């Protein structure tokens, strides 16, 4: 029988604590995106380099990041590396795991975006006397970033949601970690997780909206 009594007041009292957690969540997600974007650019450069070792390394990274569970990637960063005596804190391991995952997905987004830009663009730059690096930097890259902007936004949302996997490596300061601890103390599972879900939802929506406004400002063409 359905005999559960909701205790929203009790749950809502913990809201300030949860919002503090949400800030940590946002911080991890943002940092993981910044690192992920830098890594993805480096991976893209490796793939374009024509060097087989660099290219193979980048492809392996992308393959693993995209075809294994994000949970495992975070686990590996914490417990896996721990086996080799490299001990990352839950925060660092979570950040590293998500950044690894982001880099793989973003590198693949960049590859798709690059395919959409005709070779003749770089060629036109070369014909004006630019080096291949200049042609990439000033002609191809800005166009690539525009095409990849929406997928990058999606990945940012995905990164926010992935932070919740931190509970599995003992992360207890982000939204999911705090929610889990509150839950363990009170067993008000439904209330706490429902509130946390709303907060995740709102953050994700805010990011999407913010990205859209940013795109409208940045891309006038």
């Amino acid at each position: 029988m359905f005999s559960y009594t909701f205790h929203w007041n009790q749950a809502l009292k913990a809201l300030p604590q949860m919002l503090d957690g949400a800030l940590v969540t946002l911080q991890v997600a943002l940092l993981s995106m910044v690192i992920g974007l830098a890594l993805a650019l480096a991976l893209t450069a490796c793939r374009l380099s024509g060097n087989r070792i660099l290219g193979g390394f980048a492809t392996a990274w992308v393959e693993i990041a995209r075809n294994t569970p994000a949970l495992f990637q975070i686990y590996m960063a914490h417990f896996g590396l721990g086996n080799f005596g490299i001990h990352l804190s839950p925060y660092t391991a979570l950040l590293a795991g998500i950044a690894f995952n982001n880099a793989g997905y973003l590198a693949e987004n960049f590859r798709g975006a690059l395919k959409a830009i005709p070779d003749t663009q770089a060629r036109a730059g070369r014909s004006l006397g630019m080096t291949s690096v200049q042609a990439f930097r000033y002609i191809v890259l800005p166009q690539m970033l525009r095409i990849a902007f929406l997928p990058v936004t999606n990945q940012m949302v995905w990164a926010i949601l992935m932070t919740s996997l931190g509970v599995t490596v003992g992360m207890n300061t982000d939204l999911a970690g705090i929610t889990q601890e509150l839950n363990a103390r009170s067993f008000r599972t439904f209330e706490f997780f429902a509130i946390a879900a709303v907060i995740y939802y709102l953050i994700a929506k805010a990011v999407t909206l913010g990205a859209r406004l940013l795109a409208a400002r940045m891309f006038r063409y």
Partner: protein
Amino acid sequence: MIEIQNVRKSFGSLEVLKGIDLTVNKGEVLTIIGGSGSGKSTLLTCINGLEPIDAGRILVDGTEVHAKSTNLNKLRSKLGIVFQQFNAFPHLTVLENVMLAPRKVLGLSKEKAEENAVKQLTHVGLGEKLGVYPTRMSGGQQQRMAIARALAMSPEYMLFDEVTSALDPQLVGEVLDTLRMLASEGMTMICVTHEMKFAREVSDRVAFFHKGVMAEIAAPEALFGAPKDPELQKFLAATH
């Protein structure tokens, strides 16, 4: 002076240039005509060093284009090239399109580059379009912008590769007028074109390419008036 000496070039098993010899003097306007696959466009991209060659050599003012020691980027600022596709940079305004290479390659200051770009764009009739993004313009306007972009590098030679072939018929005229203007100003030009009337009127010499060979080269009156090569006779009969 551009000297082309016994240049050969293959794509896979297909030989597209079978030993081309040709010299273009300073101030000369040379047009190259011929059917598709005759090798005329390939020759232009070889002159500019965008394509390697298999044999022979190309000298631009005595510098061998395909020599390892040649600084191609430096050489290319001397050799403007405009393609069939306009290759406008869509993320930059018309003004920025023209300013980019002078700033990054020649190292001009922003003010200098802008002044120069405005001058070139005004010259090709786009002085009113400076802040517009190229995708908002017609093909003819984009192509004229591409010409201004090449001219902004102060090239000594201009190579035009079928620059009107991708245009709607009503837009061809404005681009050809721009080329005529450049020719009348004494620019050294090699134009690959299908516009026979234009070739006739603007050229000092016209070359006819057929299957990778330069089958005939002569002043326009002679080449169009009394063609000697049988393939050229067929070609002219078909295009008229």
